């Protein structure tokens, strides 16, 4: 059973099965459906310094075996998060990983200071897919320079905390960017965030989403995520957490075989909230040789 544990930086998770940031909100929303205390960890919805209302217009569209979302980082902001949401999740016995928005530099630094002042948080995940104003709205995670700045700032301000960098797949060489994160001090990387996609209303010919593009998740992107994890884990020394279309125990096994130290489950909980616990049982069973 001991081998079930995974270590990221100097933090140990009791098993490799984690809820991805976003779909599960702040965790408590799923408490009626998932034994949160049984999971390796719960990555909470990405928070920004100040509350965000999120995007206008339609936010969800189902696609073949996938889901487009344009939620736009709606979140309660750091104060309410640390004041209410995080304590509630801890109360539920869950292990939180706090996801942080990589917005404008000033707000980002203040957000890091806020985290620094909270000693219930020992692991954070930097959401490097946020569109960044300093770089024309492109995701921070597409530029090695910005990546380096965001990760090393967090490294400096949060010494001793475990630091995950969550990568966007909308780049040419994701493994190269993982190396940048490693060099900047990340203790692990999460791959992948959503693929950029869009849809159009065939009647009006207009984009479905107000912001035109949206993020594609779900089983449709699994092969792309698996490839990213395989490539990254052959290039970096730090642990990789796989995310993207994990929909079954078999998928989880594939990610672990591809080199992932752990896996994050997102979209699948919408229709199959029992999946995380089934994966834990399967992995536990396998490790005890009774598979």
């Amino acid at each position, binding site marked *: 059973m001991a081998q079930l544990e995974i270590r990221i930086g100097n933090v140990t998770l009791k098993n490799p099965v984690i809820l991805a940031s*976003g*779909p*599960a*909100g*702040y965790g408590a*929303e*799923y*408490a*009626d*459906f998932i034994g949160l205390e049984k999971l390796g960890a719960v990555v909470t*919805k990405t928070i920004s310094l100040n509350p965000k*209302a*999120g995007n*206008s*217009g*339609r*936010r*969800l*569209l*189902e696609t*073949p*075996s*996938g*889901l487009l*979302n344009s*939620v736009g980082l*709606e979140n309660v902001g750091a104060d309410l998060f640390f004041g209410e949401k995080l304590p509630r999740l801890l109360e539920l016995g869950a292990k939180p990983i706090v996801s942080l928005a990589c917005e404008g530099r000033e707000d980002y630094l203040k957000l890091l200071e806020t985290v620094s002042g909270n000693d219930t948080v020992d692991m954070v995940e930097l959401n490097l897919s946020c569109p960044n104003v300093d770089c024309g709205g492109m995701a921070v995670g597409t530029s090695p320079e910005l990546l380096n700045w965001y990760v090393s700032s967090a490294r400096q301000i949060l010494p001793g905390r475990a630091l995950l960098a969550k990568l966007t797949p909308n780049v040419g060489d994701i493994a190269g960017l993982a190396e940048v994160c490693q060099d900047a001090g990340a203790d692990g990387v999460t791959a992948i965030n959503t693929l950029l996609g869009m849809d159009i209303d065939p009647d009006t010919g207009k984009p479905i989403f*107000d912001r035109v593009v949206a993020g594609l998740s*779900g*089983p*449709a992107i699994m092969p792309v995520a698996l490839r990213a994890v395989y490539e990254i884990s052959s290039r970096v020394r730090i642990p990789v957490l796989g995310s993207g279309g994990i*929909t079954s125990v078999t998928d989880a096994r594939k990610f672990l075989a591809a080199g992932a130290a752990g896996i994050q489950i997102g*979209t699948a*909980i*919408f*229709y*199959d*909230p*029992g999946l995380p616990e089934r994966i834990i049982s399967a992995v536990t069973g396998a490790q005890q040789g009774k598979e």
Partner: protein
Amino acid sequence: MNMNRGPFQAVIESKEQISPSTYMLTLQKPEGFVEAMPGQFVSIKIGDSTSPLLRRPFSIMDSTPGSLLLLVKDVGPGTSYIVSRKPSQTLDLIGPLGETYFDIPSGEDAVFVAGGTGLAPLVFTARKWAKDHRIGISHFLYGASTERELLTGICREDFTYVHVATLDGSEGFEGDVVKMFNVLREKGALPERYLFSCGPAGMVKKLMEGGTENFKSHQTSLETVMACGVGACRGCVVPLKSSGAPVYRAVCSEGTVFEADDIDWENWRE
């Protein structure tokens, strides 16, 4: 304390076709299913394929000690899967979902307005309040395109008055349900106290344009596309009227029932 909200494997007890594309399903109430409130819904998993992917939400049309009633209109792959299931087969559902409910002070008269399957939560509401001796006189206004699409056969007993409208005039009032509402209201035939509506956003908007301001309260149960159904993903939001920054509310967990006046109808694109 956590509640058990599923997933449940609910056995289909019976299935009845009540219009060319609409079915009434009676499910055996799953063991441990929490008591449901008017306006709440369940969300059903669609088979084992990853396409369709998401669960589909359906209002609870009645909840008795032994069973759950759903009204399902076949409009696409998910609903088509559901209505193709046969008695003794199961449906995988979570629920009850929704955290605001239709509400009325004891003894008040009520007007209900529905379009399409919007009938379901209103029937549940009327039945529950009748059982609780909560409601006074009730008017139910229902519209469909033709007489064949009228679903009021299943709920005539549940309201004091049932008024039907068909676009082609094949039964009842000729025109849409909002036109009928306005005519009845102008005639003074409706008690303008509590209004409960459920249907396409277009219907509710038109209802408000026609004049609902005399009502003390107009509560409406909304439908948006949902992923989680539990307030986590923030995908199912509607905008509220606000003077400052935009404010969004999740229909699944901060609804489904809203005071109609609070919704920023202008900025809501379904």
